[in-house]
């Protein structure tokens, strides 16, 4: 399994500002995923991040709002830009175990509150 850490674990931000969330994995992985978990709702995939290429965004999510970086095989960042209260959520980083395991592993999440 992979061990994943996220920073910050939580933050309270003002409307109109941006926050960058970091995700660090203890092993090299091909695919990294960013999810949003809104209060009382399920996980929604924001985007898939490959090292060395542009992230692939799901319907309803755009790069201008959620820019993602993937500089190497163990690290990724997600920025939540120009935040509004509707962006208050838990943001989760995830990696897959590779084709040999078919299981996803999740970071502890970043709890974001936008005032």
């Amino acid at each position, binding site marked *: *399994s992979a061990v*994943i850490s*996220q920073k910050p674990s939580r933050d309270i931000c003002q409307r109109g500002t941006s926050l960058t969330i970091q995700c660090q994995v203890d092993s090299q992985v*091909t*695919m990294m*995923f960013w999810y949003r978990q809104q209060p009382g*709702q*399920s*996980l929604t*995939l924001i985007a*898939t991040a*490959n090292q060395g290429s542009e992230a*692939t965004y799901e319907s309803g999510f755009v790069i201008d709002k959620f820019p993602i970086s993937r500089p190497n095989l163990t690290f990724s960042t997600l920025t939540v830009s120009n935040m509004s209260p509707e962006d208050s959520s838990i943001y*989760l980083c*995830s990696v*897959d175990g590779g*084709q040999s395991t*078919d*299981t*996803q*592993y*999740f*970071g*502890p*999440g970043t*709890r974001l509150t936008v005032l």
Partner: protein
Amino acid sequence: AQSVAQPEDQVNVAEGNPLTVKCTYSVSGNPYLFWYVQYPNRGLQFLLKYITGDNLVKGSYGFEAEFNKSQTSFHLKKPSALVSDSALYFCAAMGGLGPGGSYIPTFGRGTSLIVHP
């Protein structure tokens, strides 16, 4: 399109009693099915999965799940609940490989399990 339904927002059970958390799915092809647990202020932890083979799958912490193809269900069960099992449980399903050969499941809304002493 893939979909997962967890019909119960909350399940209440007394400690020591058996528990069931329900999940039904809709995917194309043979399903890959998963259960994850989320404890307060923690990320999701993998519990168990069904890919192929025996319909009854055993996982972590004494949990098991039964794959029922005709009912397209994958209910999570435990013979004797513990207070420490209280958490949010997510069912996930996928019907094939995502881009680049990775697995991108669809998650249910989650079911809050509350085990009373």
